[in-house]
């Protein structure tokens, strides 16, 4: 620790800190453009100048290492003049087009010009103009506004791991771009919009839509993947206009994946905003009462075991517990959340969660990825792995080649399950890397769990974790990486059929007479038997609704308060940002209302009561956040690790941009799919 005095305030900061950090520790605000805590230091904007005693001239605090006894002054005439001068330089070639700039109102340049700049410009000559660059369908550029802080360049190469942005040419002619005018191949590109301190990089879909002060902000949780990214939904009136990440160092730091950020135009399209009932082969608009009566009639005389329910990938825990209670009341044991047919062992929670924790990745010192494609399963977690990899000494092995480069160095160990056996018995070289590590980590993806021999793969991964010392009293290196936001919550609620009950596959082809789909679209609705009466409760007119006999319009994740459990098992609460459209309602309320019609009234009338029921169903729901725990318990999953099959590991995800009903309805995601996924698919043919 070093003692530093900032404007007369003495603070202690760790050795190796910068003057800027010391100033922050002393509660002094230092204006900055190029400095960003999560990126490397560039020191090229000079906005952060401060005076350091004995230094002959002002120093750029963001890159200036502190020394014990250093005296920093941030509020002298010299500093004020230096800031004014830097600001004047920055604005020389800036177009000052705030009235037509989307960054207006949340622009660092604007704010800092107000706070630290001069009151007028002395520059009368021509300003330079820069051609706008093409960066893909998500990021809009107005490069004349760029102040060349290079934050975007550093973000792309350091965090996103796609070194495609750069500063070409020199001096007056320097320009930021890809040079070759191609779309950035990153699933994290939306974050460029957030880190650009000016209006050079803005959101293309959100262009000219709103000013920040018009928006109502609601804290929520991203439900488009299982990361549990903390988000803030920005809405105006009934419309969600954009979604930004919230900082949570435990989960997403301050990043967010493109699918969660840009799917939102799908919230307005293909919506189910009123109940529908099928009569004579066609769907007709109906009232809630008619719809409920139609379902009740279809259920009449049907024994409980001939009724089934499938839970979708974006459901909140509240609606899932209500559905579970309804099915129990109807006497049905058939309820399944595994649209993809994955197999889990529910006997212990750590058999199906990401136990090291996302932040725990940074502590790990070796990694094995089995049947997962972290880049697409969770771009944010992938960025965390890359962050760890950049820190060095982090061997990464992959079983089953990922669909695209993972943005860090890794070794493909093969695509056969037998590789696992080779690692367990130590015959493969990578086993030494795992064994030699203090905190080895194994990530098991859905590609490994959606196979016939999934139980064996799970057991093999567990015993490998055990063998290499990944399960100890203070470290749990066994991790399941999920793709669906609802999955861990559903597993916590036990939404998997017990022995003898029907799974998703068992409910197909006439396995049940009445089938309740809670937002389930991805299981292959065409497989449902022609005589099965299908109820679709959900928000989008997608595969499930197309097959339904009764449609009950539900709410999307931004339209209801909900509890989500991410792949780590972290319980997080989302607030309601907007109201569901038309007659659509919160999903647990629909189930509660229907239960009354069939005479099995669910015992809760308001949200606190449902949440109390959740906590009763599984105490984990009573506790927000994530307790860390070790893995050394001696218990292993039930599967037989020696029963590994010989099918190579494949991909468990189709097109990253089109994995759920919201993103499929989103024109932006469709365009991303055309830009990014289809060329790759074509090239692979």
């Amino acid at each position, binding site marked *: 620790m070093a003692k530093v005095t900032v404007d007369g305030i003495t603070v202690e900061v760790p050795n190796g800190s910068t003057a800027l950090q010391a100033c922050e520790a002393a509660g002094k605000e230092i204006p900055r453009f190029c400095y960003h805590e999560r990126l490397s230091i560039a020191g090229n904007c000079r906005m952060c100048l401060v005076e350091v005693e004995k230094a002959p001239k002002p120093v750029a605090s963001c890159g200036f290492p502190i020394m014990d006894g250093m005296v920093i002054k941030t509020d002298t005439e010299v500093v004020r003049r230096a800031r004014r001068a830097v600001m004047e330089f920055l604005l020389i070639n800036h177009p000052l087009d705030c009235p037509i700039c989307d960054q207006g109102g949340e622009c660092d340049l604007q704010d800092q010009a107000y706070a630290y700049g001069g009151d007028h410009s002395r520059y009368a000559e021509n300003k330079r103009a820069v051609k706008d660059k093409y960066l893909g369908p998500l990021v809009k550029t107005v490069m004349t506004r760029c102040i060349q802080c290079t934050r975007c360049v550093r973000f792309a190469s350091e965090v996103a791991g796609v*070194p495609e942005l750069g500063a070409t040419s020199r001096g007056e002619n320097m320009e930021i771009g890809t*040079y070759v005018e191609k779309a950035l191949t990153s699933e994290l590109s939306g974050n460029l919009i957030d880190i650009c301190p000016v209006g050079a990089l803005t959101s293309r879909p959100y262009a000219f839509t709103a000013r920040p002060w018009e928006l109502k902000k609601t804290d929520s949780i991203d439900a488009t993947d299982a990361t549990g990214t903390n988000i803030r939904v920005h809405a105006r009136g009934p419309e969600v206009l954009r979604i930004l990440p919230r900082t949570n160092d435990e989960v997403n730091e301050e990043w967010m994946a493109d699918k969660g950020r840009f799917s939102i135009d799908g919230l307005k399209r293909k919506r189910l905003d009123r109940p529908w009932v099928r009569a004579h082969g066609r769907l007709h608009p109906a009232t809630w009462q008619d719809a409920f009566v139609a379902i009740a009639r279809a259920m009449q005389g049907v024994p409980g075991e001939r009724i089934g329910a499938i839970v979708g990938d974006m459901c909140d825990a509240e609606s899932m517990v209500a559905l579970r209670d309804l099915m129990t009341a109807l006497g049905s044991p058939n309820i399944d959340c595994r649209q993809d047919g994955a197999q889990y062992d529910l006997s212990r929670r750590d058999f199906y969660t990401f136990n090291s924790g996302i932040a725990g990745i940074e502590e790990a010192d070796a990694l094995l990825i089995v049947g997962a494609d972290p880049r697409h399963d969770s771009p944010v977690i992938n960025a965390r792995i890359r962050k760890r990899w950049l820190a060095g000494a982090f061997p990464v092995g992959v079983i089953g080649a990922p669909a695209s*480069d993972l943005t860090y160095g890794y070794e493909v160990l093969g695509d056969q399950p037998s590789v696992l056996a080779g690692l367990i018995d130590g015959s493969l070289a990578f086993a030494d890397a795992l064994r030699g590590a203090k905190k080895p980590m194994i990530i098991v993806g859905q590609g490994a769990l959606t196979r016939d021999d999934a139980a064996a793969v799970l057991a093999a991964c567990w015993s490998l974790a055990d063998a290499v010392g990944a399960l100890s009293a203070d470290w749990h290196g066994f991790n399941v990486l999920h793709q669906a936001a609802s999955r861990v919550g559903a597993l916590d609620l036990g939404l998997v059929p017990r022995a003898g009950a029907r799974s998703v596959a068992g409910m197909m082809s006439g396995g049940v007479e009445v089938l309740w789909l809670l937002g389930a679209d991805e299981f292959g609705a065409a497989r449902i038997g022609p005589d099965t009466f299908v109820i679709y409760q959900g928000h989008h007119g997608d595969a499930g609704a197309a097959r339904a006999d009764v449609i009950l319009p539900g709410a999307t994740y931004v339209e209801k308060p909900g509890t989500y459990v991410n792949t780590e098992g972290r319980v997080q609460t989302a607030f309601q940002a907007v109201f569901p459209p038309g007659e659509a309602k919160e999903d647990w309320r629909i189930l509660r209302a229907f239960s009354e019609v069939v005479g099995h009234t669910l015992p809760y009338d308001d949200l606190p009561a449902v949440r109390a029921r959740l906590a009763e169903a599984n105490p984990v729901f009573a506790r927000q956040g994530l307790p860390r725990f070790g893995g050394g318990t001696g218990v292993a999953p039930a599967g037989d690790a020696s029963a590994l099959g010989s099918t190579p590991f494949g991909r468990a995800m189709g097109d990253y941009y089109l994995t759920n009903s919201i993103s499929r309805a989103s024109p932006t995601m469709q365009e991303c799919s055309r830009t990014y996924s289809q060329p790759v698919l074509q090239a692979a043919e």
Partner: protein
Amino acid sequence: MSGQFPAENIGHGQPGHAPRPGEPAQPSAFAFDGESESLITGILAKYPEGKQASAVIPLLYVVQKQLGRETGSAWVPRVAMDVVAARLGMPPIRVYEVATFYLMFNTKPVGRYHLQVCTTTPCWLRGSDEVTRACREATGIRHWGETSEDGLFTMTEVECLGACANAPILQVNDDYYEDLDAGRTVELIQALRRGEPPAPGPTIDRFGSMPQGGRTTLLDVPDGEGPPPAHPATVEA
């Protein structure tokens, strides 16, 4: 897989795409020839394993030379930058950055003779305006950066070439022609057009940057021990 830069990231995704207005047509492929390859082997050997990216500038020169040999226009097309990136295991954008930063790399085709006129203060004081004018008149080029109609000459304005003692300077490809005036510039260009480039160096009666007409100091130092002998031309005369 150790490569962090998958195939789809290398290159611009649209090789040989239609040039935008004002953009040169880019060749769709580039490969080092034998002569370049042997140079590269020597260059790469100078850098420790894992630091091969340090060779980016020499390799870009190799590219530019090879293009000069092959097409008479010494420039660095975009595909060649991608090839350099792949060879050195670095992201293509890092090569684009270097290639566009240094004016010595031509990112557009140039004429067979690249006339680089120094117009920085010492040369300007010594008559670079005249040299510029003479170049324009002799080649028909009107603006900086243009190539003459016969495709032989491209004129570029450059900053100090570090040879101010012999100002004004005209650099033709890699050679310096020094102490120019309008007349000698025109002669030079005519000689180039005939395909008879004269020996580089001062175009007046002096050796290197020695005083005109031979030494004025250290006259008592015998030849061979002191400064180099007088200019051969002076000796003959």
